């Protein structure tokens, strides 16, 4: 069976060039980078190069990058670490209702443990209001954490505008850029970002590696104690092959960004237009055009439930995801879709198709051919659907 992977926002395959490079550091240059000897030194050099590759993609200095075990750890390190380090100054945090759980749940945890938390709402396109953010700022506000691009609906937040405000008011600004890395250009200096989370496995690098950009002069308390690696910010033997792979993936992402943006945008718009015209009772979730992440398609298909849609797609070789409760791991459907004002029913029927480098026009044609049949079949089974409902 031909398989079409349309779940790149969940994770990506490792680029063969990246995998090959890592292999070298598994079996040949396997030393501990802290070691004095040959095996350690060779790895140390490669680590330094990776740090530069990562820094370059986001406009940072290599010394401002702390490698972590992934986006989740970087988000936690940024938020827990900054909150702790800044507690003398204040205890108020601001975030948005559509953040990834790694941000939202960390903020909520702090909100129950001595900090005050404001969760900003979003509009129906999944975008926060800068005015509301301004109003939420208090003298004791120490951190604003707003994601760059949303992982479910692809909405892009007004990061530059927020950065100007936080800079002016001397508040730390953390941005989760896990989804935008390699797809939107990021310049931490120009955007006035103090802390930026990125993750390797969303840009064709290995899983289990991420990084936190920490602007020079900004202090975050560590989550973990130990061998004092990463300038004490992140102890633990460095995952050298993983970091080196991430570095390479960043380099490739930088080289490919422009052409990939064009490629993905064209596939995205073809897919959205096709779905909207071929299936009735469908709603596009998230903005369209330039406010939408280039590789994100998210639609609610009324009267059917997301997981059964995914299973049906899987049976014809198409891998996708959904914000239905049955796939969210909780009893409620996606908190992002609910925050955008969707009813539970409509949120249950959401389908995310996230595009990647390997996808082709033919892939989209195939999906546009098959998806309507699946929808028909599931709707015929649904007690909520009657032919007249359109």
């Amino acid at each position, binding site marked *: 069976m031909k398989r079409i992977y349309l779940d790149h926002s969940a994770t990506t395959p490792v680029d063969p060039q990246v995998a090959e490079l890592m292999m070298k550091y598994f079996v040949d240059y396997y030393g501990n980078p802290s070691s004095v000897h040959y095996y350690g030194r060779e790895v140390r050099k490669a680590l330094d190069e990776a740090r530069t590759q990562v820094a370059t993609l986001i406009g940072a200095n290599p010394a401002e990058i702390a490698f972590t075990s992934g986006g989740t750890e970087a988000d936690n390190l940024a938020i827990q670490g900054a909150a702790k380090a800044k507690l003398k100054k204040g205890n108020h945090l601001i975030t948005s209702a559509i953040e990834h759980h790694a941000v939202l749940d960390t903020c909520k945890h702090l909100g129950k443990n001595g900090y005050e938390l404001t969760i900003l709402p979003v509009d129906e396109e999944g975008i926060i209001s800068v005015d509301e953010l301004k109003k939420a700022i208090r003298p004791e506000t120490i951190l604003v954490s707003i994601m760059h691009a949303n992982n479910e609906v692809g909405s892009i937040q007004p990061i530059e505008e927020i950065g100007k405000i936080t800079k002016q008011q001397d508040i730390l600004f953390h941005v989760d850029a896990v989804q935008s890395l390699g797809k939107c250009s990021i310049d931490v200096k120009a955007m006035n970002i103090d802390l930026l989370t990125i993750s390797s496995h969303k840009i064709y690098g290995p899983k289990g590696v991420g990084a936190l950009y920490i602007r020079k002069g900004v202090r975050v308390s560590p989550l973990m104690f130990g061998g004092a690696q990463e300038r004490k910010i992140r102890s633990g033997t460095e995952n050298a092959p993983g970091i080196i792979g991430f570095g390479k993936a960043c380099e490739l992402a930088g080289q490919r960004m422009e052409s990939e943006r064009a490629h993905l945008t064209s596939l995205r718009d073809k897919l959205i237009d096709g779905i909207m015209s071929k299936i009735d009772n469908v709603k596009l979730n998230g903005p369209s055009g330039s406010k939408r992440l280039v590789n994100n398609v998210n639609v609610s298909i009324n009267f059917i439930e997301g997981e059964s849609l995914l299973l049906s797609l899987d049976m014809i070789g198409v891998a996708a995801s959904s914000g239905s409760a049955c796939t969210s*791991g909780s009893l409620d*459907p996606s908190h992002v879709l609910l925050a955008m004002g969707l009813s539970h029913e409509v949120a249950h029927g959401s389908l995310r198709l996230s595009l990647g480098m390997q996808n082709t026009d033919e892939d989209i044609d195939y999906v546009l051919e098959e998806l309507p049949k699946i929808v028909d079949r599931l709707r015929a089974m649904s*007690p909520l659907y009657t032919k007249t409902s359109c």
Partner: protein
Amino acid sequence: MYSDKVIDHFTNPRNVGEIEGANGVGQVGNAKCGDIMRISLVVEEDIIKDIKFKTFGCGAAVATSSMVTEMVKGKTLEEALKVTNSTVAEALGGLPETKLHCSNLAADAVHDAIKNYLEKTKV
């Protein structure tokens, strides 16, 4: 995650639809929680002669609905009332832990339809 039987019942669900002249109709769940199962059945002389379902829900919800219709079709009402959500899950070769509660209500829907039949015929 799902057993082969679940996948089979999801892919080729038995007894999908609504019976026009049903003398018992039952429904459980709601769209908010993501699962709705509707059962319509025809009872003749205490025996379920025909049964059909319509389900909005995940793979487990569809498969349990399909399975329960097979399990009770041709059975007496008394026998059908003995079929529970967990015997349905068993018949499917088990369900993932997370699906045991919210998506495994098909037997309840059948019981609801039988109750509806009994109430109707009482009158």
